[in-house]
């Protein structure tokens, strides 16, 4: 999967036609095969644009910052990114007319070890669902599969699971990179910060990590698109996808196979209801 040429062509076309102020794409980092996001503001930067199997980050995250707010933006989205874009469009965070979306029909990206990333193996929608221009051939919607890590953990006992997560919450340093890197987390004031004693709850104790990560994942339940930007941003390499995939599994199984961002104007699973929703757990 190497669409560098096509993307450069599209970007230069957009700039010559004056359709965008900013183009968001990927750029090669100086070392490794690491790629970083790049905001192209002038046509001179276009040769630096790149797209291949290592373009892992979700660029829709950059639509929430001041640089791109209320500007005409060209953006490159893969399948999962386009679902995120669909969500933030539905939630009125960006205007569709301000965007020029280059949709990529993704064949999966590689993780740090050079293998196909786990979320790509379990991907339900590799094709872009929102796009102005499409690159690659669509491969269609795939069957939903429960995450292997979640399955494995769920088979373990309560105490074992508790110990496993205790370790995770102890390793969290509360840097909030997961929240900052999440395209769905755009609130200007976040509830996990709003504390009378910030020093207390912002500290890197297991208690505050439990509070922050659990609240964060529950506020993303039914909205998370499994792009794993949070995991890539986490300096402690915590398996944050466990929380999201668990929620996704429960929502998929109980609420009419709901998956976030698949359809236009579909808000999260918590914004609608069905009279037949399970309530056997309620006394």
């Amino acid at each position: 999967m190497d669409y560098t040429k096509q993307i450069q062509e599209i970007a230069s076309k957009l700039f010559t036609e004056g359709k965008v102020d900013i183009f968001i794409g990927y750029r090669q980092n100086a070392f490794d095969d690491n790629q970083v996001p790049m905001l192209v503001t002038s046509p001179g930067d276009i040769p630096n644009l790149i797209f291949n199997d290592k373009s892992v980050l979700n660029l829709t995250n950059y639509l929430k910052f001041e640089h791109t707010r209320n500007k005409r933006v060209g953006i490159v989205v893969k399948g999962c990114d386009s679902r995120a874009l669909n969500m933030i469009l539905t939630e009125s965070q960006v205007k569709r007319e301000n965007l020029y979306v280059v949709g990529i029909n993704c064949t999966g990206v590689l993780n740090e070890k050079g293998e196909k990333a786990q979320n790509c193996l379990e991907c339900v929608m590799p094709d872009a669902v929102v796009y102005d221009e499409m690159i690659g051939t669509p491969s269609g919607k795939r069957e939903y599969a429960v995450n292997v890590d979640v399955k494995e953990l769920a088979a373990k006992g309560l105490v074992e699971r508790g110990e496993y997560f205790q370790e995770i919450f102890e390793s969290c340093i509360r840097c909030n990179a997961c929240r900052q890197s999440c395209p769905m987390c755009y609130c200007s004031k976040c509830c996990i910060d709003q504390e009378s004693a910030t020093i207390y709850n912002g500290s890197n104790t297991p208690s505050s990590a439990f509070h922050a990560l659990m609240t964060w994942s529950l506020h993303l339940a039914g909205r998370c698109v499994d792009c794993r930007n949070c995991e890539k941003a986490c300096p402690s390499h915590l398996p944050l996808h466990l929380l999201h995939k668990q929620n996704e599994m429960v929502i998929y199984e109980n609420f009419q196979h709901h998956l976030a961002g698949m359809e236009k104007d579909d808000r999260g699973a918590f914004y609608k209801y069905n009279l037949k929703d399970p309530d056997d757990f309620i006394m």
Partner: protein
Amino acid sequence: MEAEVKEIKGQVVSAENPAIVAPADWQPVIVGILCNWCSYAGSDLTGTSRIQYPPNIRIIRVPCSSRVDPWFIIKSLQTSGDGVLISGCHPGDCHYISGNYYARRRFLVTKKLLNFVGYHENRVQFSWVSAAEGPKFAKVVAKVTEDIKKLGPLHKYKKENLK
């Protein structure tokens, strides 16, 4: 697979962490979040009809069960509560027509996630109690208190543990 609740004579052993033991006369604190229109009125009826129920519950009144953000549950468990009881109107009886339908979706996901990270499923419980169900409210509180007593004190991720 749920953890077995062990019982040592004269002591309460926590189901989530067998290392935590409490004296037999230990009393749990249960955070009760009740909807204004049904359950709060129901609990009021329990009181006015002089029905006895355990005093372990600390009641918070909210306008509707859908006002309960999963965050409230997390915060209750993180601060003083050993357990949480959330109660609202029966499905179809919501004062705001559909609030409790939204709420129960969130409750299911919250409950499953808490169980996933190592909380016993009885730590957080939900009920539908109408304004006329005084005796039911007493029964619900008695059951929740009994369940939490069996589970033992909650020490996981407590703010007080920061010393």
